[in-house]
């Protein structure tokens, strides 16, 4: 019975993907819950459907519409609030603004 319920959901998802949504995962540096909130809020803009940053793996899963927003813009928005990504680093100025608990660069060994 549950499987029948899943079918329309799956169809919708497939339809969604066909509507030019792209799934992408990339690395974003951060430490804590506040970081997760900051990162996800930074890219909570038109064109981004869903995002989820995993604190342990430091991977950000994001679903967006390339027609509305480019990937480089996502990296830029994240850098603007002070977080480094695998593509680009945040400026010193932006990094200095993050809360003391979130000073992830001090933790990094690389």
């Amino acid at each position, binding site marked *: 019975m549950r499987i029948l319920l899943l079918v329309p959901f799956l169809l919708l998802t497939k339809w969604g993907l066909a509507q030019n949504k792209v799934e992408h995962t990339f690395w974003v540096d951060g*430490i804590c*819950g*506040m970081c997760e909130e900051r990162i996800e809020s930074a890219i909570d803009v038109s064109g981004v*459907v*869903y995002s989820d940053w995993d604190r*342990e793996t430091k991977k950000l899963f994001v679903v967006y519409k390339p027609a509305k927003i480019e990937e480089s813009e996502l990296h830029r928005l994240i850098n603007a609030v002070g977080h480094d990504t695998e593509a680009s680093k945040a400026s010193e100025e932006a990094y200095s603004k993050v809360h*003391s608990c979130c000073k992830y660069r001090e933790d990094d060994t690389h």
Partner: protein
Amino acid sequence: MLGKVVTLDDGAEIPVMGANIWWEGTSIGTTSGKDGGFAIPIPSDTGILNVALVGYQGVHQPIQGRTKKIPAIVLQEGDMLQEIVLRDPIKSTELSKRSVSLSYTINQGELRKAACCNVAESFETNAAVDVSFSDAITGAKRIEMMGLSGVYAPAQTENIPFARATSSLSGMSLIPGPWAQSIHVSKGVGSVVNGFESISGLLDIELKSPMNDSGFAVNAFLNSGGRNELNLSHVVRLNPVISGANLIHASSNPVRWNVNGNGFLDMPLGHQLNAMSRWRLETYSWRAQLALHALRDQRNAGEVAYDFKAPFEEASATRWGMEHANERLSGFGKVAYLFDGVRERSLGLILQAVAHQQGGYYGLRTLDVMQRSSHANLIYQDGNSLTDTWILKAGGSWYADSISSQLTQWTDTIKVSRNERIAGAFLEYTWKPIDRINLIFGGRADYSTLFGWFTTPRVHFRWALTDETILRAHVGSGQRTPNPLIENYSGLASSRTFLWEGLLQRERAWNAGLSLQQDFRLNYHPGSFVFDAFYTWFQQQLVVDVDHVDAYSLYFTSGGYARGLMAQVDYEIRKRWSVRGAYKYLDAKSVYASSGLRTNPMIPTHRGFLNMNYSTKNEWDFDATWNLFGQKRLPDSQENPTAYQWEERSPSFSMVHAQIRKSLPSGASIALGVENALSVRQDNPIIDAANPSSEYFDATVVWGPIFGRMAYLRFDYVF
């Protein structure tokens, strides 16, 4: 769970005292003691443990569920700013996944959505519990859960019974909303540890308590009817081990309204003064709590022209008036010893004493109630949480109730009193035979000085087919001694004569339920679906028979039942935009003296619910709820002359509520809202309002809202 907070000095561990430790996204926390040690409740699911102290970097450590002990947490020096904890976007009403019984937690998010004012009014955006007025005059509330009256789902404050006897119906109106941290709603018979009285469910109210250092909180409310409320709470942490909270509430409803023009006040005038002082002690091995609660509440209602200042005989000779006053003093204490400092084995004792006086006049009748109750509950708990295959809870409890109620009617006096002592023992065994399956076997054997021995066995079953699919089932019995006059005083707002069978008996029922909870993802966003079916069958039930227009009869019969089902979907459409829809089907019947098995009046067969919530990135929150109530059977009225008859079934109607809230950076929030936005009203809630002394006068046939649209302003501030 045990741990220790330290800093390192040349590799040596230096204990850190006074660090704040809490589970992220909750109010469950503690502080580290002199040796840096702390004990905090073990999470059921994986959680993030936050540790913060001014001068150090905050720590956020993911911890697996059911961890007993963690290695020392090392704090690194940071700058002087203390971390500001951002609230995780917790869903306002969480359906628990780990709990073996189907239970919801109504969090701060939802409590804040409620327009007003006390816990009974916090269920406006929830579909499982329905609260409505039971008559058009007194302001008394009727609570419905699973098709049955709220008396079958007793309310507790932190596992201490709160609503017994005098406050069984009005109990939740006597706890101000801002005092509640969260409300835990369990559907179906509750755990035997909490007593034998739960039949359709259990409501547990967690009160606000200090987490960090001292602070003040203020909450103020004003609505377009002139109702005003003020809550002040002061939270104190004396030292890492002792903390306390003082809560004060004052409210009044001073304006005489008569919008529907029937000569009666639309809502009672009144005022309430309510204060509580609670203190906690938390050390490695000991937990203790002590609280004192006092309240005085007075309500006056009736005809607008009634002179409440004149002596009763004089004023009531010509007009119909009502006064209902509550005075309550209660105290409770809890003390628990944790063996070996390990949370899994503990011995706890709960003690409570209540003195409650309720008095009032309703037209020419008076009802006086006096209650003195005490309660003790000893609980031993043991469990093997490492391998998690079993948990054992055993203990004994004691209830002593001295309750007297006297109703003086026009031609007779009805007295229902009892002195009942109930001593009993209970055993609850939680078993996890294989991974993903939990079973709880519970049983109680109690002896009542009035009714002799009785048992209340209960079984709960939970099967997590997958991480997203959970199947639950339960069956069990419950028993309670009803309070016929106290629980039905709302019937005095009429010319119906109260008829009481004469012999006080117990109410006893069996309850069973089945539910399916399913998490899903749609367009990447999470959602959940829950379906539950329930059935309650009464071996003995106190029936309220209002199908004869001149009487309000109270007697016992057997064979009544309530069954129904509820389906609910929660879905996050987008970040910060969520929707909830629910449908409830109810079929409740009782066995009546003249008509046999018949549908109960005032219960809608179909109930629909839709809530939408949207919040912006800059702290604006928009919330709207649409409630649809289907038709209800109304009491028979053929015995009245045609002019005083009413419909057999009420029409279906909608109630819409909406709220806009803004959170200000300083921790304050302001909300502007409207209740009953469509201004739906029952046109004639009082039969023969023009002649309250006539035999046809009846304000108890209330199926819908009494007042129309109500706007309000709510202000919260935490210092």
